[in-house]
């Protein structure tokens, strides 16, 4: 399940990554969203949205505030039910996965912790529920560099520490797919640099990342392709290399699409 890790990343090499990964992962898309619609009363949060993600890619999920990004992620993760259409991970609804934590890791909010529980106990609770060995908790505390703070209550953590603890929780089951909602919020430059390197390595192992963001400069440095939505509808899905090949920047394309939509 773990193809050879590559040492160096350059955007020009991205096209070459795919064939090697085809052996590791089935051709079935990791995420497939089809005609997905979610309405809350009269408000349409997501409307007839269709896109899919292949293994081994980092995809940026972009759109203005209120575009429906978070709703889409919640529908994918079984936290909310679609009004129509379907949102599948590994060809199943999330609720039907046998051991979801071992397939999919997700961080939706940066502060989903009990303030009075220690970071270590937070992870142990999740590990118990997912039947993940306790040693894995210590591994992840080391990976996100929270060993020293692990015994402290989360209320004493900085926002960056909470982001890392959330990520550790998502990675407990060593998942193949990682879904992050606005992970850049609250990260300092060093934290951002660390996260970017982490996501690249994760994808190079043939795994898949879907990361929502509205920090375009950050996205442009991290992702292989972008899915841009606005008002619940798909505007475009395109490999980043294709944009740069046409001499466009992500910002130009994004602003052109979202402005066109608004007028």
């Amino acid at each position, binding site marked *: 399940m773990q193809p050879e890790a590559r040492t160096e990343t350059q955007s020009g090499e991205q096209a070459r990554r795919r064939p090697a990964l085809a052996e590791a992962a089935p051709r079935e898309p990791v995420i497939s969203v089809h005609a997905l619609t979610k309405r809350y009363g009269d408000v349409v949060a997501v409307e007839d949205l269709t896109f899919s993600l292949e293994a081994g890619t980092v995809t940026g999920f972009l759109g203005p505030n209120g575009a429906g990004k978070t709703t889409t992620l919640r529908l994918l993760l079984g*936290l909310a039910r679609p009004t129509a259409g379907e949102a599948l991970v590994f060809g199943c609804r999330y609720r039907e996965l046998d051991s979801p934590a071992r397939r999919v890791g997700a961080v939706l909010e940066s502060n989903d912790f009990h303030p009075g529980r220690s970071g270590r106990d937070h992870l142990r609770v999740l590990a118990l529920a997912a039947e993940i060995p306790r040693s894995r908790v210590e591994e992840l505390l080391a990976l996100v560099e929270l060993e020293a703070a692990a015994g402290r209550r989360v209320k004493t953590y900085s926002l960056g520490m909470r982001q890392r603890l959330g990520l550790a929780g998502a990675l407990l089951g060593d998942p193949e797919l990682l879904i992050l909602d606005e992970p850049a919020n609250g990260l300092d430059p060093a934290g951002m640099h660390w996260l970017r390197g982490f996501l690249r390595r994760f994808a190079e192992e043939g795994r898949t990342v879907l990361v929502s963001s509205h920090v375009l400069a950050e996205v442009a440095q991290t992702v292989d392709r972008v899915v841009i939505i606005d008002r619940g509808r798909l505007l475009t899905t395109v490999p980043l290399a294709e944009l740069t090949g046409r001499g466009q920047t992500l910002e130009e394309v994004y602003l052109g699409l979202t402005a066109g939509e608004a007028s």
Partner: protein
Amino acid sequence: MTAQLRAELLKHRSTFTNLGLLLGMLGLVLLAVLLHALSLPADRLDSASDQVEVFRFGPLLGALFAGLVGALAITGEIRHGTIRPTFLMTPRRGRVVAAKVLASGLVGIVFGLVAVGAAVGVGSAALAARGVPVMLDGSDYTLLPAGGMAAAALWAPIGLGLGALLRNQVATLVAIFLWLFFVENLLLDFVPGAGRFAPGAAAAAITGLDPDRLLAPALGVLLLALYAAVTAAAGTIAALRRDVA
């Protein structure tokens, strides 16, 4: 479901919330029991039914605080957002709620035992200090702790189910408090025929302290189990159907 149960038990153990609740409960038990045992005139404390006024606060407060434990087990997760990682780890939400029912019921048993133990110990000591003979008999010493534990174990799922329905932490805690200390008192005073079938009165009945006004202990435990099952089932359905924000 064992995995979820172990996770829920660790949630109970890994914060100071339950310890705070336990201390709060003990404080209220001592206050209520001592006030009644020391300030009621001696001629209103000489029969077994008079002394109900002293000892009944043990099982009552045990059941109340077990209800709060159950309510916090779900509303605390909603309030702090941990419900999201919880449901991501276990998307089959029925398992989560069932594990919460069991775990908070177990914690409730501890609360019930502590409350009854404190009420009987402190109440008996206070009465003895005033020279009033304690009218509890051998069966009371069995029924009180057993009934207190059963009442608390069954009130935990009631609080949990109510919390899953209301979702708001403060609203749920206030509702439980008002129901047990206000609404049920009014019911028992003004419509005792109906009031004794209410869930707080059913919990009190299990201890057998007040057989004149309340149901028989066996009937009380059955009725309370029915309340617990219905509330927990309603809470489960709500948790299954509703979107998580």
